[in-house]
C-alpha cells in the first residue's frame, strides 16, 4: 500500500526523464542534418571564407580535407596558398571535426559526393544554371545563413 504511493512519483519521474531525453536526442538528430555551427575556428573562418563560404568541416571526411589542404596553391583553378602555420592550424581543425561517414570524394568537392547529390536531387537543373547560383558550390545563393553554418530549411530560398 505504501509502495504504490511511492511508485507513482517515481514512475512519473522516469517517464518525464525519458521523454525529455528522447526529445533532446530527436532535436539533436534533426540539427545534425543541417546545423554545422558548433565547429568554429577564427582562422578557418577568415582564410577559408574569403573566396566562398567557409565550407563546414563536417561535410568531408579527414582524408579529403587532407588532400584539399595539401594542394592549396592549385585549388580548383585558383591559388589559395597559405603560410605553413595557418595551414597546419586549419588542417587540424578540419580533420578534428571531419565527417565520420563515408562521404569521400577524389576531387575534394563536397558537391561531388553522393550525399550532396541525394540531398539536392529536387533542385531543378535550371536553378543550378541560373546567374544567381552559377555553381553548386555557391551554397549561400540558396542557404542564406550558410556563412553561420546553418543549412536548415528555414533559411533556404531558391533564387528564380
Amino acid at each position, binding site marked *: 500500500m505504501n509502495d504504490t504511493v511511492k511508485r507513482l512519483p517515481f514512475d512519473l519521474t522516469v517517464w518525464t526523464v525519458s521523454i525529455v531525453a528522447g526529445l533532446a536526442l530527436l532535436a539533436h538528430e534533426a540539427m545534425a542534418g543541417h546545423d554545422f555551427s558548433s565547429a568554429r575556428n577564427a582562422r578557418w573562418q577568415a582564410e577559408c571564407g574569403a*573566396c*566562398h563560404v567557409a565550407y563546414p568541416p563536417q561535410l568531408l571526411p579527414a582524408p579529403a580535407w587532407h588532400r584539399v589542404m595539401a594542394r592549396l596553391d592549385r585549388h580548383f583553378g*585558383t*591559388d589559395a596558398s597559405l603560410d605553413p602555420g595557418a595551414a597546419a592550424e586549419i588542417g587540424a581543425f578540419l580533420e578534428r571535426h571531419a565527417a565520420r561517414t563515408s562521404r569521400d570524394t577524389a576531387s575534394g568537392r563536397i558537391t561531388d559526393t553522393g550525399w550532396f547529390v541525394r540531398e539536392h536531387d529536387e533542385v531543378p537543373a535550371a536553378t543550378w544554371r541560373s546567374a544567381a547560383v552559377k*555553381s553548386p558550390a555557391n551554397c549561400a545563393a540558396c542557404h542564406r545563413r550558410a556563412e553561420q553554418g546553418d543549412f536548415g530549411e528555414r533559411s533556404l530560398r531558391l533564387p528564380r
Partner: protein
Amino acid sequence: MGTIDSRFRILAAAMLGAAPILASAASPAELRAQFEAAAREAEPAYAGLSASRGEQFFRSRHGSEWSCASCHTDNPLSAGRHAKTAKDIAPLAPAANPKRFTDAARVEKWLRRNCNDVLGRACTPREKGDVLAYLMSLK
C-alpha cells in the same frame, strides 16, 4: 584555477591582438613607398610609379582568363564579385575601404595569389607600386 584561466585568456587575447599589429601594420602610403624603393633597387633607371600604368595593368588580362578587374571591377571604389564563386568582395580602393593596404602580410598574401592567377607569376615591385598608385588616385 579561475585566476590561471583568466590570466591565460588575457595573455592570449593580448598576443592575438598585438601580434598582427607588430608584425605588419602599415598604411597605403608606407606600402607604396616600400614598393617604390624596391622597384628602384631592381631597376636603377626607373622613373617612378605611374597610376595610369597601374590602371592599364589592373584592367589587362595578361593573356589569362582573368584581369584584376574581373573580381575587383573596373571601378575599385565599388564592391566587387569573385569571378568564379560570385562571393561579394569589399572595395579595393583605400578611399572607399579604409581597411585596405593597412596590413603588409595580408597584402603580400593576396598579391602572391592573385598575381599568380592572373599573370602565372609573382608581380614585380614596380607592378605592385603602380597598382597601388592607381588605387590611391581614386577618390
